[in-house]
């Protein structure tokens, strides 16, 4: 992508051209050269959208619910962007992205921008790509952005964590679903939706859920609520005393819906609005955004550093040759790692020394 092409796309997205937005997301997905400049230019125009992540096991009714959510938001006069993430085949790399079929309520309405994305087997990269796609939709001016994904693993969990509000979808009567919730999804949900609430066993599932959420409150408490910024956490902007903390904590809510006929969708939207208001009032919105950006910066750094190291591995004769040495017991993995990192560390050290020297001279 040339610089002019990037400029054109940015102008197009800001002017509300659908094709420019679509093309921007494609560039992001393909990691096209220049996509970074594109996302950088769009970043300053973001911050207007509420982002909702929807996850749940296959068949729980995510796409149908997202369709109804989008429709209801449209009825309220909001514009909507949807990113639906589907897994891709680890063998062929191909994928059938089927969520679009369920978007029956919004066909012909260009103010619902629906985009299917596939995981493309890039571990960790998916969250980066969806995050960047959200940036594009946000800069385009979408009021609500919904990210939908199967809640099947770390990848997906990372994806929904790019959202302000995380909705976890559960279907009644399957103990498996509640099992799945134990595996870490329970902690990330702000709102739990028991979909297909007209089915047998819905009441039991609601009770089970409430019980588990209660346990969560008891044990993991605030630690799970505030995804820590790690070493970059700024304690001064106040997690406050434990007492404050309790008031600030959002108690996850359970909502019942029947997505196919739209029952409960209005309630769900009320709860989503409540949660967003809560996030804003408590400053949690800010904190989550900070956490997100910190994670994103780290992620980019890791990826960039990995690329740099990959190139260094090639310079040292390629991975195969290095493994040969280790296998022949001529050397060991630690020595190899040192050998590859040492020159880089040296460069950095030299750069630091130069900086210190400049500092000293200025004084």
């Amino acid at each position, binding site marked *: 992508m040339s610089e002019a092409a990037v400029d054109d796309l940015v102008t197009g997205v800001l002017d509300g051209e659908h094709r420019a937005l679509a093309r921007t997301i494609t560039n992001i997905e393909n990691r096209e050269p220049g996509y970074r400049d594109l996302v950088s230019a769009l970043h300053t125009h973001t911050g207007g959208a509420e982002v909702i992540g929807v996850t749940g096991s296959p068949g729980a009714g995510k796409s149908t619910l997202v369709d109804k959510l989008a429709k209801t938001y449209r009825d309220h006069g909001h514009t909507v962007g949807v990113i639906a993430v589907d897994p891709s085949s680890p063998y062929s790399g191909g994928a059938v*992205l*089927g969520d679009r079929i369920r978007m029956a309520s919004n066909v*012909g309405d260009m103010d619902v921008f629906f985009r299917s994305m596939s995981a493309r087997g890039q571990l960790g990269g998916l969250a980066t790509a969806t995050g960047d796609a959200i940036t594009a939709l946000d800069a385009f001016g979408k009021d609500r952005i919904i990210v939908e994904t199967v809640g099947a693993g770390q990848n997906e969990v990372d994806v929904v964590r790019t959202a302000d509000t995380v909705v976890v979808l559960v279907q009644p009567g399957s103990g498996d679903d509640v099992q799945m919730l134990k595996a870490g999804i329970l902690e990330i949900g702000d709102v739990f939706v028991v979909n297909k609430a007209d089915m047998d066993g819905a009441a039991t599932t609601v009770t089970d859920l409430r019980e588990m959420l209660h346990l969560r409150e008891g044990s993991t408490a605030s630690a799970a609520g505030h995804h820590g910024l790690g070493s970059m956490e700024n304690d001064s902007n106040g997690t406050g005393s434990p007492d404050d903390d309790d008031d600030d904590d959002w108690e996850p809510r359970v909502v019942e819906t029947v997505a196919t006929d739209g029952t409960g969708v209005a309630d769900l939207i009320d709860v989503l609005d409540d949660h967003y208001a809560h996030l804003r009032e408590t400053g949690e919105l800010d904190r989550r955004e900070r956490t997100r950006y910190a994670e994103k910066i780290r992620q980019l750094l890791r990826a960039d550093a990995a690329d740099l190291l990959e190139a260094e591995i090639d310079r040292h004769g390629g991975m195969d040759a290095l493994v040969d040495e280790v296998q022949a017991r001529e050397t060991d993995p630690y020595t190899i790692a040192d050998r590859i990192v040492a020159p880089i560390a040296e460069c950095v050290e030299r750069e630091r020394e130069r900086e210190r020297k400049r500092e000293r001279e200025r004084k």
Partner: protein
Amino acid sequence: MSAGQEQRTIRCLVAKVGLDGHDRGAHVIARAFRDAGFEVIYSGLHRAPEEIVQAAVQEDVDVLGISILSGAHNTLIPKVIEGLEEYGAFEETLVIVGGIVPDEDREVLKEAGVAEIFGPGTPMQETIDFVRENVNR
């Protein structure tokens, strides 16, 4: 990341347009495309031309494959192509048609902008190769 640049993933919309409820062919082609490593978006049945345009534009597909068995291709397909032109998406979208199209209509469709028409019995590999060789970007 570098791998993505070497071989760009081809995105494809497989669409059923109009009053035509037969989608076995569309399913088979969607599957074959997937196995060929394409990303396939399936439109579902009974779509209006505008809906297909909306999907093709938003999904930014390289290939739009329209399956049509109803005989209404001469009215519906030009409408889809006009819609793509409206959004400036036609130039870069490879439009192919599969299904029952009488010989005398083939030229009409090709003039309207369809790149190729694949009738019953076309070997799957032929369609896949055609797509690989002809995607417009």
